[in-house]
C-alpha cells in the first residue's frame, strides 16, 4: 500500500502539470499547422461562397500581391459591422489568391490617412496592385473583379487632349483646368498627352480616346477636317461643350446628329441645396453602362441642353437628365430667373449623351457633355463628378474586356407550398410533436412516481 505523503503528492502534481502543459503544446502545434495549411471548400450547391468562373480567370492572371485597404468605421449605423461584411466578401478572393491582403483603417481615428488616400465615403475600398490603385465604393463581385482587371491591364491607354485653342488642360492647376482629373486618370492606367493639330496634322493611331475640352477660340477648318476624319474612321471621343459658341465645331455636332440649344440650365433644386441656381444636379441617369449602379448626385455647372436626333447611323442614349423642376433659361441670367413659357424649355433636360456605332467590327464610342466645368478642378469634388468622369473615360477607352458576371441561378429560389401543406406542417411541427414529447415526459415521470 502506497502511503500518500507530501512528497508523493508534489510529485503527482508536477507529473500532472507537465502532462497538461505537454498536451496543450501538442494541441497548439497541431492547431498552428491547421491554421497555416488552411483550405476551404464550398459545399453548398448554390456556390454562394465561391467566385464565378469569370472572376477566377481574372484573379489567376494577376501576378504579384494585391493590397486592399478599406476605410471603414467599426460600426455603420445602417449596415452594422461593415468590416465583417467586407472581409467575408474578400475571403472568397483570398482563397484563390493568398497574397491578396486586406487592411482596415478607421477614417475617424486616422483622418489624415483617409484624406491622403482621397477617401470620401465610409466603407470605401482602395485596391492597390503594382503601383496603381483603384477606388471602389460599392462592393460586389462584378465591380471588384472589374477593378482588378483594370489594375491588371499592363498597357496604358493613350488619351489625347486637344490643345492650342485655350482648352482645359489635363495637367493644369488653374481652376478651369482638369489637373485633378488627369491625376486620377494616371492612377487608373491612362496616359494623357496634349495634341496640337497645327503641328501634328494627324491624330495618332494609338489614341484610345480623344478629348475636346471646351476650346476658347475657333478651330481652323483644316483642324475640323482632321477631327471629322478621326470620327469617320471610328475614333472614340469625349467632347465637353460649354455655354458659348461651338468655336467652329458645328460640323462635328452635325456629324453626330446633335443639336445644342442656346441657353443655360437652371435648377431650382440646387438653390434649395444652397448651390447656385445654375448648378444643374444630375439625379436621373439613363440606362447605360456608364451610369449603371451609379447612385451619386453629379453637378453640371452652367450646363447646356443636348438633343440627340434619332438616326440610323448612331445609337444614342441620354446619360443624365437634370433639372426636373427647372428649365433652359434663354433670357438674361440674373439672380432670380423665371420660366418664360414662349422661349424657355421646361425640364428635365438631357445634358450628356453617349453615342455608339459599330465600325470595322468594333464599337466606336462617343460621349458629349454639355458642361465642361463638370471635370474642372473647381467642381470635380462636387457630388460624384469624379466617379462619373472616370466611368465616362473607362467606357470610352473601350474596356470591352470588362466582364459582366452573370447572376448565378439559385436552385432553391422557388418554394410552392399550398395552404393544406402549410397547415399540416404547422400542426405537426408546432403542435403535435412538442405535445408528444411533453406527454411522454409526463407519463414517464408519473409512472416512476407510482412505483
Amino acid at each position, binding site marked *: 500500500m502506497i502511503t500518500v505523503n507530501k512528497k508523493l503528492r508534489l510529485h503527482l502534481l508536477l507529473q500532472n502539470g507537465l502532462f*497538461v502543459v505537454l498536451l496543450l503544446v501538442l494541441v497548439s502545434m497541431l492547431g498552428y499547422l*491547421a491554421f497555416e495549411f*488552411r483550405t476551404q471548400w464550398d459545399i453548398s450547391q*448554390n456556390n454562394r461562397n465561391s467566385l464565378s468562373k469569370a472572376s477566377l480567370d481574372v484573379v489567376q492572371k494577376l501576378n504579384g500581391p494585391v493590397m486592399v485597404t478599406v476605410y471603414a468605421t467599426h460600426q455603420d449605423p445602417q449596415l452594422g459591422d461593415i*468590416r465583417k461584411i467586407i472581409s467575408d466578401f474578400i475571403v472568397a478572393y483570398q482563397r484563390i489568391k493568398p497574397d491578396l491582403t486586406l487592411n482596415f483603417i478607421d477614417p475617424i481615428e486616422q483622418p489624415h490617412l483617409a484624406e491622403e488616400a482621397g477617401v470620401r465615403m465610409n466603407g470605401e475600398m482602395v485596391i492597390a496592385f503594382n503601383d496603381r490603385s483603384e477606388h471602389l465604393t460599392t462592393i460586389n463581385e462584378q465591380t471588384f473583379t472589374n477593378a482588378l482587371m483594370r489594375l491588371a491591364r499592363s498597357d496604358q491607354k493613350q488619351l489625347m487632349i486637344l490643345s492650342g485653342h485655350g482648352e482645359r488642360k489635363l495637367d493644369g492647376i488653374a481652376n478651369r483646368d482638369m489637373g485633378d482629373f488627369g491625376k486620377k486618370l494616371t492612377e487608373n492606367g491612362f496616359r494623357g498627352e496634349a495634341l496640337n493639330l497645327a503641328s501634328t496634322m494627324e491624330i495618332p493611331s494609338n489614341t484610345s480616346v480623344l478629348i475636346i475640352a471646351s476650346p476658347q477660340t475657333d478651330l481652323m477648318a483644316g483642324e475640323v477636317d482632321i477631327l471629322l476624319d478621326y470620327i469617320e474612321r471610328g475614333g472614340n471621343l469625349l467632347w465637353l461643350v460649354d455655354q458659348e459658341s461651338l468655336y467652329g465645331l458645328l460640323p462635328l455636332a452635325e456629324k453626330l446628329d446633335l443639336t445644342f440649344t442656346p441657353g443655360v440650365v437652371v435648377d431650382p433644386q440646387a438653390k434649395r441645396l444652397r448651390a447656385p441656381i445654375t448648378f444643374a444636379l444630375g439625379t436621373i441617369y439613363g440606362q447605360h453602362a456608364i451610369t449603371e449602379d451609379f447612385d451619386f448626385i453629379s453637378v453640371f455647372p452652367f450646363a447646356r441642353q443636348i438633343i440627340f436626333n434619332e438616326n440610323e447611323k448612331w445609337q444614342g442614349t441620354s446619360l443624365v437628365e437634370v433639372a426636373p423642376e427647372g428649365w433652359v433659361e434663354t433670357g438674361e441670367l440674373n439672380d432670380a430667373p423665371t420660366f418664360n413659357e414662349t422661349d424657355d424649355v421646361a425640364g428635365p433636360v438631357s445634358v450628356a449623351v453617349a453615342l455608339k456605332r459599330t465600325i470595322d467590327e468594333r464599337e466606336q464610342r462617343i460621349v458629349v457633355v454639355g458642361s465642361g466645368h463638370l471635370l474642372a478642378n473647381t467642381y470635380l469634388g462636387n457630388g460624384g463628378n469624379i466617379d462619373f468622369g472616370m466611368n465616362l473615360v473607362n467606357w470610352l477607352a473601350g474596356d470591352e474586356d470588362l466582364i459582366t458576371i452573370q447572376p448565378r441561378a*439559385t436552385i*432553391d429560389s422557388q418554394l410552392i407550398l399550398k395552404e393544406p401543406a402549410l397547415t399540416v406542417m404547422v400542426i405537426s*411541427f408546432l403542435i403535435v410533436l412538442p405535445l408528444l414529447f411533453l406527454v411522454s415526459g*409526463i407519463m*414517464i415521470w408519473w409512472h416512476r412516481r407510482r412505483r
Partner: protein
Amino acid sequence: MILTIASKELKLLFVSPLAWTFLALIQLMLTWVFLGQLDAFLELQSQLMQIANPPGATEVIIVPVFAVASLVLLVATPLLTMRLMAEEWRNHTMTLLISAPISLTAIVLGKFLGLMIFFLLAMLLAVMLSLSLLIGGAMDLGLLLSNMIGLSLLAACFISIGLYISSLTSHPAIAAVGTLGILLVLWIADVVATNTSSVIQNFSLLRHYESFNRGLIDSFSLAFLVLFILTFLILTIRRLDGKRLHG
C-alpha cells in the same frame, strides 16, 4: 463497453422529464423560427427573384434555424452535462464506476457518446424541419449537410467541455454554472477582439460555426473543433485517472 455506458446514460436521460421537456422546447423554438422565416420567404420570393444572386430558400429559412439550434444546445449543455459526473461524485457512485474493471477511456467516451446521441436526436428535429421544405421545391442539400456537420461538431465541443468541468467538482450546480460561463466566453470570444486579425477570434466557437453555417467547410475550423473535443476528453480521462490513483 462504451456502448453499454452510452445506452445506460441515454436510458437515464429518457426516464427523467428533463430530456423530454428539452425536446419539446427545442422543437417549439425551432419550428417558431422556421415558420417565421418560411412566411417571410414566401412573401418575399417574387421580389427576391428580381435581384441578382438572390439567397435561396435554404439560406433564408434553414440557416437561421440552425443558428438558433446552436444557441439552444449551448444553453442546454450545462444542464445535461452537470449530472454526467458531478452527480456521480456526489452520490459516490463514481467511486464504484472507476474502480470497476472498465477502462476510464470507455467511461468517458461512453458518457460523451450517450449525450452526443441525444443531441443528434435533437438535431434530427431541425433536419426534419428542413427536409419538409422538399414538399415545396428544391433545396440546397449541400448547405444543409454543412450545417449538420457544423452543429454536430459544435455539440460535441459543448459536451466535451461540460464533461470536463463536471468531472472537476462534486456540486452539479457549480458544474452547470461553470460550463455555461466558459461556453459563453468561448462563444463570443470574437466580440472582445476589435482588431479583425486578432488571435483571440480564432478561439471563438461562433466564428468557426459560422463558416459551416454558410456552407463553407474550413479545414482550420474543422481541425480546431476536433482538437477542442479531443483535448477536453483527454483532460477528463486524465482527471479520472488521477482520482483512481489517489482518491
